[in-house]
């Protein structure tokens, strides 16, 4: 059994105490975690780690399963509380000092063994710290991507203009991911509202590049394939120029500069028209083709 394994086994308590004491205030983050919780985490980790270290020094081995699981939990709970990935790693790295001190005491008379033990135990703890950082970063990425999805959903509202007519007013720049979500929400809305006409209004879109134009064309084609009519409105002169300049062919697609014109066309497609109330009263029904 190596000196490192021995020390962990027989000095668990004193290492625990000096580890806690030694955590400098920046690592300690008492603003994010209280003493009792920290002590609990430290104790549990040391216990699992000591057991695993007796069996192996390979952190990917089966012996370290409970250590890895515990670290994943710590990483997650720390990320939730607001620790940075680096702070989370310091949890492990601050264990080095008490371990090295204990090793130095035990191996005083044997410098070469001392160096070997410091090297291998340091390496082991470094690897565990890396694992913790990776996990912490992974959690952060998950949170970011979930938030991105939520933002996308919020920013693509489909509006019902009339029975059978829906409009999708797009605002802001369109990137590939957003345009795909937009496509799906519009098509789903068409089915759900049983709409025969869909108008995509891009008044609020400052620029359109080839990719976005292609996505819009695909959306319109898909809507037609499903049995609804779909066209664009709100094309500003600048965008019209870009479209021509990029050589994008909108041949098949109806476009209207103003949403109001598009709405008129939509009504016509549905066979409806708007007449003044007085006239309506006079003829006593809304004209329908």
């Amino acid at each position, binding site marked *: 059994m190596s000196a490192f394994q021995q020390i962990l086994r027989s000095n668990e308590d004193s290492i625990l105490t000096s580890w806690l004491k030694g955590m400098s205030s920046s690592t300690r983050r008492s603003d994010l975690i209280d003493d009792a919780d920290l002590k609990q985490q430290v104790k549990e980790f040391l216990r699992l780690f000591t057991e695993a270290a007796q069996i192996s020094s390979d952190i990917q081995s089966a012996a370290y399963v409970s250590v890895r699981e515990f670290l994943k939990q710590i990483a997650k709970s720390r990320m939730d509380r607001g620790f940075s990935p680096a702070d989370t790693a310091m949890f492990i790295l601050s264990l080095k000092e008490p371990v090295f001190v204990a090793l130095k005491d035990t191996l005083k008379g044997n410098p070469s063994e001392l160096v070997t033990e410091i090297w291998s135990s340091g390496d082991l703890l470094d690897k565990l710290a890396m694992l913790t950082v990776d996990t912490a970063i992974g959690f952060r990425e998950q949170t970011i991507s979930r938030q991105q999805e939520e933002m996308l959903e919020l920013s693509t509202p489909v509006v019902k203009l009339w029975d059978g007519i829906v409009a999708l007013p797009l605002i802001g720049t369109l990137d590939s991911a957003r345009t795909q979500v937009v*496509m*799906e929400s519009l*098509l*789903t809305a*068409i*089915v759900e509202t*049983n*709409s*025969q006409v869909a108008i995509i209004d891009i008044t609020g879109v400052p620029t359109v590049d080839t990719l976005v134009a292609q996505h819009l064309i*695909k959306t319109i*084609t*898909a*809507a*037609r*394939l*499903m*049995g*609804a009519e779909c066209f664009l409105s709100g094309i500003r002169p600048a965008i019209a120029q870009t479209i021509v300049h990029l050589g994008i062919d909108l041949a*098949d697609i109806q476009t209207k500069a103003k949403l109001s014109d598009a709405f008129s066309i939509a009504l016509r497609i549905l066979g409806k028209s708007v007449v003044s109330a007085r006239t309506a009263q006079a003829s006593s029904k809304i004209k329908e083709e």
Partner: protein
Amino acid sequence: MDRIPILKVGDCLLVTIQVDMHDELAMSLQEDLTSQIAKHASRGVLIDISSLEVVDSFIGRMLANIAAMSRVLDAQTVLTGMQPAVAITLVELGMSLPGIKTALNVERGMELLREFTQQNVGLEDSDGSED
């Protein structure tokens, strides 16, 4: 072998595709429909695919064939209920389903067919062109 049931509704035929068809089933549907159109001198065929979660190029071809054969037999075909995910995939695949009219649902599809059978006027194809 299972065959997909074909319902006669007035002078139209109604088919609802609800299963994930293997190729032979798709082919037998094509044959059955053609012979039924001829037998009843149907003027319209409505194929509802609202339960179909996947339409690949083989099914697409089958639908286009059915539309073409119906036309030869003087009947109009309407496809209803295409799911958004299917529509997006077909567009990506590059399939335009030429010669097939589409409608959002069976109700709307029957209206379209009624217009056709009563007036015998050409309707706009799903790709925007007139018959």
